[in-house]
Structure formats: C-alpha cells, structure tokens
C-alpha cells in the first residue's frame, strides 16, 4: 500500500515543471510557418552548401598560398597522383556522411563502416607502395611542409562546417567537431594534391593521415565549445 503511494507520488508532475510545460505548450505552432519553413530549409541546405564552399575554400588556399606544382597537368595522369586524389575522396565521402548524421539526433555516427573504404585503401597504399619514393618525402622539409599546408587549407572549411552543424542539433559536440575536422582535413588533403610534390603512396598514407588527424583534433576541441546548445 505504502509502496503504491510512493510510486504514484513520483509520477506526480512537479508544479514548477507543470508551469514550464504550460508555457511551452502556449508556443505550439509558434515557430511561425514562414520562418519555420525557412529555418528548416536553411538547416537542410546549410550542410551541403557548407561542404561545397569548403571544397572551394580549400582549393583557394592551396592555389593562392602555396600554388599548384608546375608539372600538374602531366602528373594528373600518373597513378601516384590519382592514388592521392582517390584516397582523399574516399575519406571525404565517408566523413561527409558522418558529419550529416552528427547534426541530426538519433542517427549513427559510428565511424567504422563509413571510413572502411578509405582506411583499406590507405593501408594497401602503405603496405604495397610500388613507387619506391622515400617515406620522408622528396625534400628535407617535406613532412612539416605538407602537414602544415594541409592543416592550413582545412581551417576555413572546418569553421564553415562547424557553423553549419551548429544550425542542426548535434548531440555529441566533441564527436561532431572531430568529424567536421575529419571532413575538413580530407578536403584540405584533396586540395593539397595539386601542390604536393611528394608522390609516394606510403608518404600520403602516413603524413596526409597525420595532417587530417590534427585537423580532427582541432575540430574536437572547438566543437566542444562551439557545438553545445
């Protein structure tokens, strides 16, 4: 008997909460149709739009800050160049899917399956690199140059993507930030392929991946602050 009483008591609405519920219910339909529709549309549009501008901004940074390699047109037909491009495209594709899911509550952001193609591709490149190019790159400063350039090319994209995710409802701010960094980093890597003179598959697999990981870490740190609501 007493037990039943406590059970009912715990289900009683707290007057404070009851008050809140009434005030929230007063706003039913209160996201005015025009404004609500616009906001919903703009949230749906914000993500693909920011992804598109991210690609443009990454290429713009590489083109104007570093400049494309002179023999780019001849190189474009070699498998080493295409390896870089394809690896970054696979990574960006998987990350893009995860970024979209991160902005919508209840969708999976488990990275394993989405990133599997890119991971396998990079691992194969690392293990069976037939180019014979050194792991440390073509010049003494190749590693810091490449890593820094990719991070730099990724930063505008990262900020754009974070701003777009913020319009949604990210329920894991750190993870969503990291995924935004992953996407921005792979777009930065993609853009950097037009400037990078290091063509070894193993070089790309290690140092491009490191640069992308750095951008993902930056994204996680910023996301923790910027994406909470």
């Amino acid at each position: 008997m007493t037990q039943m009483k406590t059970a009912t008591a715990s289900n009683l609405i707290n007057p404070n909460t009851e008050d809140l519920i009434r005030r929230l219910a007063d706003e039913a339909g209160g996201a005015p149709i025009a404004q609500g529709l616009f906001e919903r549309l703009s949230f749906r549009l914000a993500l693909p739009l920011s992804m598109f501008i991210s690609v443009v901004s990454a290429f713009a940074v590489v083109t104007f800050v570093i400049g494309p390699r002179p023999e780019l047109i001849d190189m474009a037909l070699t498998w080493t160049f295409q390896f870089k491009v394809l690896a970054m495209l696979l990574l960006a594709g998987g990350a893009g899917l995860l970024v979209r899911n991160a902005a919508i509550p209840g969708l999976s952001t488990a990275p394993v399956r989405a990133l599997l193609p890119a991971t396998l591709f990079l691992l194969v490149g690392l293990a069976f690199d037939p180019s014979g190019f050194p792991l440390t790159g073509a010049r003494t400063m190749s590693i810091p140059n490449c890593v820094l350039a990719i991070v730099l090319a990724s930063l505008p994209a990262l900020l754009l993507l974070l701003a777009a995710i913020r319009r949604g409802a990210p329920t894991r701010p750190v993870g969503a930030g990291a995924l935004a960094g992953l996407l921005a980093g792979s777009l930065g890597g993609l853009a950097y392929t037009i400037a990078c003179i290091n063509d070894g598959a193993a070089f790309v697999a290690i140092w491009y991946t490191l640069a992308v990981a750095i951008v993902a870490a930056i994204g996680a740190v910023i996301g923790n602050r910027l994406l909470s609501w």
Partner: protein
Amino acid sequence: MNTREQSWAEAMCAERRGERPVYEIFLREFAVSLRRIVAARLSRLHLSAAETEDVVQEVLIAVHSKRDQWDPSRPLMPWLNAITRYKMIDAARRLRRDIKLRIELTDDEWSDLSGSSGTDPVHNAADLERMISVLPAGQQSVVRAIGLDGATPREAASRLGMSEGAVRVAFHRSLKTLMAAAHKRFEG
C-alpha cells in the same frame, strides 16, 4: 512502445498545426517518462536526485527549441533519446563541476555569499546588482534582460545573440543560484 512512438509523433505534427492541447499532453507524458529515466541515471552516477527536475526541464526546453528540426519521416523516439542523453551528460558534467566549485570557494567568497547587510536585500537596487554580480557574465546579461528589463526569452535571445533555448536555461539556472543566495542571506 510502438503506440507511444506513434502517438508522440502525431503530437509533434499536431504542434506544427498549432494544436496546443495535444502538444501539452505529449510534453506531460514525455516529462513523466523522462523523470524516471533521469532519476535512475543520476542515482547511478552518485549525483543528487534533487537535480532530477532541473534536468527534466532542460530536456523539455531542448526538445521544444529544436522541435521544428525533427523530420516526421524519421522515428521520433531515437531523436528524443539522443537529445535526452546529451542533456543528461551535460547536466552530470555541470553537477560535478558545481560540487568542485562549492568546495573550492575561498572564505571571502563564502562570506560574500552569506553575509548580511542591514537593508532589506530585495528592495535595494544596488544590492540586487550585487547579488547578480555573483553570476557568470553570460547569466548576468540574461537576468538583466529578462528580470530587470522585462524582455521575453525570444527578445533576450536576439538581443544577446544566443539561442532561445540557451536563454531559457541560463535564466532558469541563475534564478536557482539567486534564490539559494537570497535564502542564505535571510537566514544568516
């Protein structure tokens, strides 16, 4: 379970058509189930169950402020669960930080919080300012906008460049802090 998904999803759609009663029933039912989940989680995390109602209200405000983003072609329950989980983690982190902060207050800060001045605190504007000044900067501006200038949460949100949900939560938290401080002063 399935019927709840259906009836709550219908209520969310009804809200968009401005059907207040249906939405209110949904909020109430959701609050009841939230209260159970949140209380269980808090006790498992060894946090005070007294905070349950706060967390429940925060989840309600969060769901309300993002309600237009739910896509009716997707199931509602996972959407609600993800938001609940997020606000729960957020609250747990804040509660732990509050506990730490309370322990780390210096003697001066303690006497600031509980010290009594001769005048009646509620009717003294300077004193009111002083009480507000113990709040974090963000909460101070929210309290000034809503409490002193009489703005609505939406007006305050656009004025301060915050989301409406954030304003509601900040205002709610500051009121709690201020009430606790005022309580101490009357007793002390």
